[in-house]
């Protein structure tokens, strides 16, 4: 039985609380409208889509179910929009040495983990992207990553990451897990990945995770196959995507890529120490049923039912807890009081991040689909 502590039960109240999010969507997504009918429809549908899901979060009282819909759809449409942008820019979703030499590779947040040591030692960034111009420039992504991580901690991984929706989506396909037990210690492998990638990249002055291991190149951009090395890189990409993003999430119902492999997830976890928002277990209410631990897609709850440093604040444990012991909490405030306020105060910046970071890509993708098939 799921708790129903957070359901407002009032359409009027939920609508009023959704209004700020509607205004934020209108403000952030209206930039760049061209007046073309397909663009306008894309904009309207996107605002309606995000706003209605936020309304449902408040009205129904569940975070994760509605967040996941927004998150998964955002990830898929982001890829559509991103790959279309690349085709318009360079005629292909692959990159060659020419794009690398001319620094035209878009920068993604995962690269942040690999540029840290060289930036400190050599005062340079080891990524062939643009510092300030073009889309997904290095400076714009760093501003977003640092800013949102300070505010949300690892909440970025459940609300802002435009890749996370892929393994989140696959982890929800089967009704019950086929592999029922996943060793929770695998969660620490992501931290090992973070350290190894940071050091390996510093040693070779190349972003090695991007070069060799990133599965999400399949849904964004990848190496053009010109020789054995690039062929091997593409094979590795297919293997990591197939196993970590598709097969293992299907079998375990866990976000295996995000929980055990992504170095950015481990890096973001460190920001949980700074962020005001966190998930806590109010032990006075806990009946030790273990549902939180069992349901957590990121293996982020300990054996004694306490959220750990790698919690991505997706809200599933809060939804699943039958007694409401798992709560969104604001550090420094009394435990067990005003938890609906804490939840709401977290939802606004978290959902704003999703809308502003990925929303325009969603609108673009809808517009593109309309232009391709209807207009």
């Amino acid at each position, binding site marked *: 039985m799921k708790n129903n502590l957070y359901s407002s039960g009032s359409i009027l109240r939920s609508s009023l609380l959704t209004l*700020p999010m509607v205004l*934020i969507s209108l*403000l*952030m997504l209206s930039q760049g409208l061209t007046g073309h009918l397909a663009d306008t429809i894309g904009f309207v549908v996107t605002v309606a889509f995000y706003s209605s899901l936020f309304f449902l979060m408040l009205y129904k009282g569940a975070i994760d179910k509605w967040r996941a819909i927004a998150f998964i759809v955002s990830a898929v449409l982001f890829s559509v929009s991103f790959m279309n942008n690349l085709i318009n820019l360079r005629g292909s979703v692959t990159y*060659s*040495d020419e794009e*690398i*030499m001319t*620094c035209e590779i878009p920068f993604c947040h995962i690269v942040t983990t690999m540029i840290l040591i*060289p*930036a*400190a030692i*050599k*005062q*340079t*960034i*080891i*990524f*062939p*992207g643009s*510092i*300030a111009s073009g889309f997904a*420039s*290095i*400076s*714009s992504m*760093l*501003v*977003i990553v640092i*800013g*949102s991580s300070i*505010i949300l901690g690892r909440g970025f991984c459940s609300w802002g990451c435009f890749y996370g929706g892929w393994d989140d989506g696959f982890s929800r396909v089967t009704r019950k897990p086929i592999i029922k037990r996943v060793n929770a210690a695998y969660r620490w492998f992501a931290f090992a990945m973070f350290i190894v990638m940071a050091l390996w990249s510093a040693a*070779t*002055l*190349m972003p090695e995770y991007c070069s060799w291991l990133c599965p999400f190149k399949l849904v964004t951009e990848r190496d053009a196959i*010109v*020789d054995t*090395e690039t062929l091997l890189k593409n094979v590795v990409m297919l293997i990591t995507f197939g196993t970590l993003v598709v097969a293992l999430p299907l079998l375990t119902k866990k976000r295996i890529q995000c929980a055990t492999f992504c170095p950015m997830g481990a890096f973001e976890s460190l920001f949980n120490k700074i962020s*005001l*928002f966190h998930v806590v277990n109010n032990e006075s209410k806990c009946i030790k049923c273990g549902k939180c631990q069992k349901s957590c897609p990121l293996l982020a709850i300990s054996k004694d039912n306490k959220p750990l440093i790698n919690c991505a604040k997706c809200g599933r444990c809060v939804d699943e807890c039958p007694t409401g012991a798992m709560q969104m909490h*604001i*550090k*420094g*405030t*009394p435990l067990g009081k*005003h938890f609906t*306020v*804490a939840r709401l*105060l*977290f939802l*606004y*910046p978290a959902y*704003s*991040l999703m809308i*502003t*970071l990925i929303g325009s890509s969603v609108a673009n993708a809808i517009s593109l689909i309309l232009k391709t098939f209807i207009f």
Partner: protein
Amino acid sequence: MKYITYPLAAFMTIAMLLIFINMGQWMQMMVQLPFMKVDPWIAGGEVVDSVITDSSRIYIHEAAHPGLFTNDESNEMVQYDIYGVVSDSLLMSVAGSKPDDVIKSCKTSDHQIIRFYRKR
């Protein structure tokens, strides 16, 4: 006092929006940081010279390309001794090079290009 974090948490929504609304300004501040330049090993600076070979895997031994670089101040030709295998790796060791000089190889389908850069 313990309730002070509530307004702080409420401010986080505004802070999140400020990140995006003021993106141009934040980016300007960011690019002024000392590390905000792409490493020339990765991107290259000014192309000083380049060598093209028709082999995908070549070996360059000592003093293979004397005078590839010109010294900035004296305009003297500087001899570099290049060691190592130029293959899939982008990096090579260049004996006697200055810290600001970089060398990088780039392989296309039918030939290998070795480019020599000097930091911008």
